């Protein structure tokens, strides 16, 4: 069991309920009224907690190991998924997965970061932190989708691009940069959703879409709160303060016009009710595709350009 600090009060009530249930099952508790009372209390408490989540709480939820990931979306929301591998130059990077699939009968190219749940998986997937070949595979698959007129869905979930020797040798910067430029020119609809942690350029490299959405408790940031705290405060343990300052939660990013909207999560978070969260996500994706399908290739490119063109806040004196 993996319980976050913010979940502890509710978890305590729930374990109390379990105890009472066990007593009742054993015939040692006459009435279920106490159970019902506690259940109502737990529900109310959980709703209250989830109404008042701060940026640090959301950071914990966004990084929750059991939060739905790209392959969960594949399993729950798609049919006929065929994973496609490799960048054709160096190797297959398992921290990004991609392939053709159908969602409610509609063809898609689905590409997403993939982290692991167990240590073994995380070693295999490099904790969802891609090398350049991961971004090059992603772009190859996007171009493949474009060739056959298939819309693209990207799911963003990474701490960031991997900062290592091999990554630098093979051109991490160039790989990310090329994705940014080439995604701007794709002739098919591109929908991007931050489903967990959207960390910096390594997230953005899958993020130049006609629609950019977030799952409600996801985060999308220029730098991790730990990295920010270590640079600005000289102390990475002050990450909570940095989380507040960076305003990287969906509500703030919507106001700043960085994202087009967010997909509400069930009370308790996406990890508590993954199927419900994924169903909402699928619905949102299909709704946005419905709008984008009506646009021509030129309109899609122009719309995507204008969307990113207007990002930024500055003053202009004449």
């Amino acid at each position, binding site marked *: 069991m993996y319980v976050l600090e913010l979940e502890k009060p509710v978890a305590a009530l729930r374990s109390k309920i379990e105890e009472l249930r066990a007593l009742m099952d054993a015939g040692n508790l006459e009435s279920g009224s106490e159970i019902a009372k506690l259940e109502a209390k737990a529900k109310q408490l959980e709703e209250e907690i989830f109404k008042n989540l701060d940026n640090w709480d959301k950071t914990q939820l966004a990084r929750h190991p059991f939060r739905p990931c790209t392959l969960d979306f594949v399993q729950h929301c798609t049919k006929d998924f065929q994973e496609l591998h490799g960048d054709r130059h160096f190797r297959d990077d398992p921290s990004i997965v991609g392939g053709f699939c159908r969602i409610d009968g509609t063809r898609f190219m689905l590409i997403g970061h993939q982290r692991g749940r167990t240590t073994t998986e995380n070693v295999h997937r490099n904790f969802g932190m891609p090398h350049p070949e991961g971004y090059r595979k992603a772009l190859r698959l996007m171009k493949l989708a474009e060739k056959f007129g298939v819309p693209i869905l990207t799911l963003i979930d990474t701490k960031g691009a991997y900062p290592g020797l091999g990554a630098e040798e093979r051109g991490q910067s160039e790989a990310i940069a090329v994705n940014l430029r080439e995604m701007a020119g794709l002739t098919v609809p591109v929908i991007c959703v931050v489903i967990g942690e959207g960390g910096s350029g390594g997230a*953005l490299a899958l993020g130049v879409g006609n629609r950019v959405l977030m799952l409600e408790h996801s985060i999308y940031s220029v730098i991790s709160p730990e990295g920010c705290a270590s640079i600005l405060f000289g102390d990475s343990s002050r990450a909570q303060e940095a989380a507040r300052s960076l305003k990287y939660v969906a509500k703030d990013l919507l106001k700043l016009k960085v994202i087009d909207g967010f997909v509400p999560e069930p009370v308790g978070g996406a990890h508590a009710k993954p199927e419900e969260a994924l169903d909402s996500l699928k619905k949102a994706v299909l709704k946005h595709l419905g709008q984008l399908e009506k646009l021509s290739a030129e309109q899609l490119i122009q719309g995507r350009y204008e969307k990113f063109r207007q990002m930024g806040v500055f003053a202009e004196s004449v």
Partner: protein
Amino acid sequence: MSWFKRIAPKLLSTEPKKNIPAGIWIKCPECGETLYSKDLDKNLKVCLNCSYHFRLTAEERIASLVDDGTWTELFSGILPKDPLQFTDSKKYKDRLKAATTKTKLEEAITCGEGRMMGQRVAMSVFNFRFMGGSMGSVVGEKITRTIEYALAEKLPVIIVSSSGGARMQEGALSLMQMAKTSAALYQLAQAKLPYVSLMTDPTTGGVSASFAMLGDINIAEKGALIGFAGPRVIQQTIGQQLPAGFQRAEFLLEHGAVDLVLDRRELKGQIANLLGIMLPRG
């Protein structure tokens, strides 16, 4: 005559030279040689003994690349705001004020139009001394406008980078400048207008992972540190010492990330030559 006396008067007024006061002896950090500052200036701030490249201000960089008296600054008066009301140990607004006072500059980039050996070019040049050349909304906007100006005027684009990356204090808005500038470069590429990216010391993070690496020609200035992640972060991640020369210009050439590593004194001639070949005549 000092090479940076040749600069356009407008620039001189916005950024008085103050790095090295005239008539002072400077010690080269690389070879230890003591250099007379006027000689150093004449040599584009390249050590006369060992060719170590001192960092340049944007003003000095422009003077080193652009023909005398041809520079016109563009897009001045675009100023940073504080959309996040960002506070760390200092308020972002105070950091901006301090940077402006220190550099006498509006922001971390200077843009304009000039001629290189007669060829008109649109140019954006980073000022590393302004908050480490970090890219926030203003830097992204001015680069994008430079590219759009080049599109309208059918000019080649030159961006001289010197930056630690995206500016944290503007959060995701800074991150989005990577996409914005790269999308503008997509349009420039469609129009078949040349883009030369000159990466100088240092070019890292979100700047290197967007427009800086997207040149039709990528040039690294000799000795420059260029990379995605900073060396300290990489060292912490992998827990071992980095090899000598890692992420230096020559390392990038060896690994195929840049077309050329050039000495500062060769830049203007080489870039003008390449533009002459890439641009159709007439």
